[in-house]
């Protein structure tokens, strides 16, 4: 029986069948080779792709496009090369996931506040000669009247003479000096040659620069052994007074005659004393005022003498209008007024009157609060946010600073430094001329003595006796060191217990006027200035010293290892804050090399106000003209990188 193959594809094992087998094997091999090749290609492609991705990575820090998730900031001590007194370091930490990027930036600790002491104008400076009767006839209550008036004589040059000794204090604007001169006068002389003193006093006025000339006679009204004058002057007013002659004892009336003569010489004669015809006639004849007031003498000028305040992004200029602080922009409805009790200065008496006499002369900004004082000694606390006066205290003036939450101000005209609670209330009082403070201690210098006072308790913690009279005090808040500059040119560095750390000298002839500590490459330096020189001293000794060619240094700041020194050159015959030229001298603080010299303005430049946000130093002159200097190129004004860190996952 024959078996018939029923498969559709008949594959007999003949030559055709073998060819088919070979063809199938061949196809299988080709397919395998293609598969292997494609896998190799695919592997290589993937591998190359991954490798390509690796090398294409930017290798910059991968930050999110949406910005940092978290930004934190912390304050540290002053950056290297920046003034310890005025700056902090602001460390800014920006976080993206596990990655931190740190940067630093200079941040303002406090502005370089200053006190405007010299307030005279070349075009309008009255000269006032105070003639004080120091005879045994003198009623000393008139001294007080005269001292009060002198305290109000802003913008004036004042000299003091006595009937017995003549001129004992040359013309000056230093009220403390005038006050101490007045206090030194004792009424012990047997005679009071009033008209002779007036006649002599007329010759003490300068021939130039006096816009107006005034004589202020303070007397009990009794002339004794007086009238020894030229014959033509004895009855100059031709009033036929029989006493217009020299009388060996009391009774001469030549005073009103000399006053008339003075008036014709354009000199005003004012009188302070009892209500007598002689004194009133003298004031009348002398084109003056009997019992004069401030406005009779002080010129009315609109001017600025303090830097502007940067409160947030709002700027305030403390302006004086008609020579009086203009506080019209402040509400005073809720303000309290106080005065220091003359007999017990620890007591503040309530006052009904909030009038602020005189121009503003010093200030300090503490957050939203402005503390400022007028030149005549009235301390104001102002809320800058509410634009209102909180309180005023009559009798307090001088520099202002804060020690913790307490206010330290002084010296006043009596040379006292007050510590006040915010309330206000007097916490303690010390005599002193210069002071500075840390958070807890005040350092007060008087003569050769330096005292450390605990601010909260008022207890004296330590004392130091300097080899020379102390002319400046600075507390370095970064190093915790107190620097005491002396009038003999040496600087003593003391720790907070006033133990000597170092004694440095720059070989200055003048008094040390200001001290600025800073650090560079971990070494401490101090830049000190006198009236004519600048020097840099380290713990190893003098680094450099230079004379200043352009005027007198009035302010210095160290930024980015550069000393920014403001000078005022007043070569004018008649001096005043409107005269001369102010310069900004920029020196390398480490080498003393001059780097820039810029003319700021005519007259005295006040400031600078450091405006790190706008990257400028801002000065102001008496007219209120603003002058800015760009500091954007300084390292530290903008954030400077401090590298990055990636936390472990």
């Amino acid at each position, binding site marked *: 029986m024959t078996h018939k193959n029923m498969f559709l594809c008949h594959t007999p*094992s003949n030559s055709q069948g073998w060819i088919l087998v070979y063809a199938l094997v061949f196809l299988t091999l080709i397919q395998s080779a293609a598969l292997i090749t494609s896998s*190799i290609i695919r592997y290589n492609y993937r591998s190359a792709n991954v490798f390509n991705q*690796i*090398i294409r990575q930017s290798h910059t820090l991968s930050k999110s496009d949406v910005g940092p998730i978290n930004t934190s900031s912390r304050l540290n001590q002053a950056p*290297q090369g920046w003034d310890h007194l005025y700056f902090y370091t602001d460390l800014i930490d920006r976080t993206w996931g596990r990655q931190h990027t740190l940067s630093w930036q200079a941040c303002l600790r406090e502005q370089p506040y200053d006190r405007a002491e010299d307030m005279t104008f070349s075009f309008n400076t009255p000269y006032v000669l105070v003639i004080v009767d120091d005879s045994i006839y003198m009623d000393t209550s008139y001294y007080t009247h005269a001292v009060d008036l002198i305290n109000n004589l802003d913008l004036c040059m004042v000299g003091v003479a006595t009937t017995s000794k003549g001129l004992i204090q040359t013309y000056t604007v230093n009220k403390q000096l005038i006050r101490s001169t007045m206090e030194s006068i004792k009424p012990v002389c047997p005679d009071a040659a009033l008209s002779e003193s007036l006649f002599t006093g007329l010759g003490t006025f300068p021939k130039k620069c006096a816009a107006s000339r005034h004589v202020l006679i303070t007397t009990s009204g009794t002339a004794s052994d007086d009238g020894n004058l030229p014959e033509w002057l004895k009855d100059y007013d031709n009033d036929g007074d029989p006493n217009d002659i020299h009388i060996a004892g009391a009774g001469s009336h030549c005073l009103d005659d000399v006053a008339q003569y003075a008036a014709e010489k354009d000199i005003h004669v004012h009188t302070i004393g009892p209500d007598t015809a002689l004194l009133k006639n003298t004031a009348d004849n002398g084109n003056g005022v009997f019992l004069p007031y401030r406005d009779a003498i002080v010129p009315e000028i609109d001017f600025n003498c303090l830097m502007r305040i940067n409160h947030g992004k709002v700027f305030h200029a403390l302006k004086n209008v008609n020579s009086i602080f203009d506080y019209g922009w402040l509400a005073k409805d809720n303000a309290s007024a106080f005065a220091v009790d003359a007999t017990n200065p620890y007591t503040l008496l309530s006052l009904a009157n909030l009038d602020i006499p005189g121009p503003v002369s010093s200030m300090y900004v503490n957050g939203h609060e402005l503390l400022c004082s007028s030149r005549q000694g009235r301390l104001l606390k102002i809320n800058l946010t509410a634009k209102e006066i909180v309180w005023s205290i009559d009798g307090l003036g001088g520099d202002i600073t804060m020690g913790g939450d307490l206010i330290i101000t002084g010296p006043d005209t009596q040379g006292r430094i007050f510590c006040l609670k915010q309330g206000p209330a007097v916490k303690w009082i010390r005599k002193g001329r210069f002071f500075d403070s840390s958070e807890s201690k005040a350092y007060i210098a008087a003569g050769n003595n330096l005292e450390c006072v605990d601010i909260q308790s008022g207890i004296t913690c330590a004392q130091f006796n300097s080899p020379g009279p102390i002319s400046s005090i600075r507390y370095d808040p970064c190093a915790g060191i107190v620097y005491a500059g002396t009038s003999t040119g040496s600087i003593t560095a003391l720790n907070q217990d006033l133990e000597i750390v170092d004694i440095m000298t720059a070989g200055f002839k003048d008094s040390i006027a200001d001290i600025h500590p800073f650090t560079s490459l971990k070494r401490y330096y101090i830049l000190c200035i006198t009236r004519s020189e600048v020097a840099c001293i380290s713990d190893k000794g003098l680094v450099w010293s230079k004379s200043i060619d352009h005027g007198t240094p009035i302010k210095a700041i160290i930024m980015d290892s550069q000393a920014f020194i403001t000078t005022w050159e007043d070569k004018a015959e008649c001096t005043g804050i409107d005269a001369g030229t102010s310069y900004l001298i920029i020196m390398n603080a480490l080498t003393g090399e001059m780097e820039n010299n810029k003319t700021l303005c005519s007259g005295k430049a006040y400031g600078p106000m450091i405006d790190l946000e706008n990257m400028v130093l801002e000065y102001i002159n008496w007219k209120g003209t603003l002058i800015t200097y760009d500091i954007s190129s300084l390292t530290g004004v903008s954030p400077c990188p401090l590298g*990055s860190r990636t936390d472990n996952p």
Partner: protein
Amino acid sequence: MIMNKGITLIELLLSIALASVIFMILYGMNRTASRTYMEIRDNWYCMQSIRNAILVIRNDMSNCGYLMPQDIRIAVRKNQLFIAGLPKTSSHSGLKIPSDSPPPCYSIIRILTNKGIELDTIDLDNDNRPDYWADLGLITNSGTAVISHSYKKGAKTLPLARQDSLSQWDRAIPAIHYELKSNGLYRNSQFLAEAITGFDAKLSAQKLSIEIKAGRNDTQKHVSLSYPFE
């Protein structure tokens, strides 16, 4: 019957010839596959070496100069690279922000001798932990150095294995030290990548450029890295 027939000589010869061709093709494919495998292996080897180097360098660069002076954070020498920073270890988690003095943190070279240097401090961040140890690099204002392997952690005097001409009163900071040796790339004297045959770093004001070459047998790989500075 056809099934009973034998094969002819021609059929045999043709079969042998065809089989030979098939065997030759198979041999060639095997050889190609083998060579490709070797190349892939060498490629992979080079790439792994480069990848290792890149990852470590990238990590070090991401922590470069943290809290240190940025003007001396990177230094390059022939076949060497110094990246300012401290490698994180089990005993040292890196620099911390000092509380008493503002960064940047650095040391000052106080004394310079033939044997080494004495620094003003070996604790940069004042956290009572020494921040220098053996085999670390040093970057200073005037040059670079490598701390000797014999240095005992905590000692103020640092013996130096190799150094440029350093200067007294220079700033000095610890740095991670990369060096290409004959058998590969080393990091702080520890072997990092075997197949690296070229390591060339260039520093400009804008960026750090690193050329890394890896080679094995006939395979060569070349990578250019660029780290732009902010």
